[in-house]
């Protein structure tokens, strides 16, 4: 009798927990995707939840590709991506009844970073492409020291990986020797220890808690032309004007017109409070130009 009572109590408790979990899942906004954006969006979500009673937002990483797949398969409400969707992905989404709408949450200046012991200061976009395609295997060939190039990059699920491949590598294959790390943070940690290293990370990952560039890193200036002026990705004016060649919008996509709680969250992100946090975290705000216009259209 006693054992039956305990057993029944356990079963009821399990059912109760399952019920709570189901209820929570019902109103929790699931956000998945870009590793470049994950820290930023997590902080945005935390601050939003602090200000909005009853809001529940779960933010996961996994890479832009994972987020996009998640939205297409309807396992998340918002997909973060640090790149544009490919036509294949948009077609697939429509096939599955998902009509993606894109909101620009922030702007990133994709940063090319080396170890602080590397004497180089500047590279052209073409030179970075040559490094990452594996055409150039020694720093000497791009005007640096006599040392083998140690490439750090992301994996194929990363939006940054795809963006680099399209805009810097000219849609050619990456070098097979590139180490494919699991996220921006791992690239930075690897760079700090490896003297011949080069890596690409989002601009928000460059700074430590005090707002200074992480110790052990050097951010390279990038120029469009061989003898042109190079700009740093931390240079707000250069990123805004397009003088910095590797700036890119960071997208949050929803399936169709966002539902009220999702729309409220997104609206807060592109509003003044959210954008202040974007700036605080080292990224760039959306501003008043074409991104804002597109956002306003997509909210309707």
């Amino acid at each position, binding site marked *: 009798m006693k054992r039956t009572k305990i057993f029944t109590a356990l079963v009821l408790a399990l059912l109760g927990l399952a019920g709570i979990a189901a209820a929570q899942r019902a109103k929790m906004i699931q956000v998945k995707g870009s590793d470049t954006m994950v820290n930023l969006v997590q902080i945005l979500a935390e601050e939003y939840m602090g200000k909005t009673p009853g809001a529940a937002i779960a933010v996961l990483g996994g890479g832009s590709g994972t987020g996009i797949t998640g939205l297409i398969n309807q396992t998340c409400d918002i997909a973060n991506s640090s790149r544009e969707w490919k036509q*294949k992905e948009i077609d697939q989404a429509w096939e599955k009844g998902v009509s993606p709408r894109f909101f620009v949450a922030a702007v990133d200046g994709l940063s090319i970073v080396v170890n602080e012991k590397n004497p180089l200061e500047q590279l052209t976009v073409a030179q970075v492409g040559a490094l990452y395609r594996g055409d150039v295997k020694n720093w000497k060939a791009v005007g640096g020291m006599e040392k083998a190039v140690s490439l750090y990059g992301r994996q*194929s699920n990363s939006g940054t990986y795809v963006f680099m491949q399209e805009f810097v590598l000219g849609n*050619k294959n990456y070098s*097979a*020797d*590139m*180490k494919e790390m699991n996220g921006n943070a791992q690239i930075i940690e690897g760079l700090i220890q*490896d003297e011949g290293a080069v890596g690409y990370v989002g601009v928000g990952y460059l700074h430590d808690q005090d707002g200074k560039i992480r110790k052990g890193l050097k951010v390279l200036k990038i120029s469009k032309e061989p003898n042109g002026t190079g700009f740093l990705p931390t240079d707000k004016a250069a990123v805004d004007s397009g003088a910095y060649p590797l700036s890119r919008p960071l997208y949050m996509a929803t399936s169709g017109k966002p539902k009220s709680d999702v729309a409220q969250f997104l609206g807060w992100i592109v509003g003044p409070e959210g954008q202040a946090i974007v700036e605080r975290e080292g990224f760039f705000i959306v501003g008043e130009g074409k991104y804002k216009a597109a956002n306003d259209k997509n909210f309707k």
Partner: protein
Amino acid sequence: MRKKKLSHLKEAGIRAFFFTCGVVAVLVLVGIFLTLVLTAVPAFREIKLSEFLLSKAWDPTSPEKAEYGILSMVMSTIMVTGGALLLAVPIGIAVAAYLSDVAHWRVREILKPIVEILAGIPSVVIGFLGIVLIGPALSKIFHTGNGLNAVNGSVLLAIMALPTIISISEDSLNAVPKAYNEASLALGASRWQTLLRVKLPAGLSGIIAAAMLGMGRAIGETMTVLMATGNARAFPHGFLDSVRTMTAGIAIELGEVPYYTTHYYALFAIGLVLFVITFAVNLVADIVLHKYQEREQ
């Protein structure tokens, strides 16, 4: 009378329940195998089997030409597993021999639980140790820029395979009949000679089975190698190269691959290869252990 019938029913019910559990276990295994095969086969409509097994280039999302060759990943798996066994088997046998033959019972009481705890450390934690502790140490020792290579993977996998190898080897050494021990000592052999020439050969099948099970653990390990080996696609030319194992290859890409594309099927094909390898290893270990148990009887 009724009490007897009720107890009969209860017996039959419990027997049926255990039988069902056994059947479910077999069904799950068969189900997994069938799922892998059925999802892997469509890949070979687009990919030639020879290219899949023999090409060194794996780049399914390449904008130039999609490549589906797993040879580099297979080689990487072989390298880290081989390296792990090279480290773990001698150490494992030595510790097992120490525990079963040499150690004072008090030392044994402490050491055995510690070995069990080692088996319980999550693979993520070991991977983390690989990045922050072993990686920098390796880069200092071998004068490479970084420690994200096959040596790192081997060391970490050795740590993970060690408890399995130690436990099973120790069991098999303990199962050697005392008569062998006593006879050897009576004939004038020293304890070291007894250990080396009598106990170890007698327990050899058990030790081989232990090594194979440790190998099975190392082959299937994903998180540790994903974090600590660098995941470069190139065919590894040495242990100091960054490698990408089959398990890491699947883990990296399965999250974002669109369902039911060639890439998706190809990932399942890699899974099938892994399943077959692990199954074969476990089967051989089982046969060897079985033979050993038979012989002892």
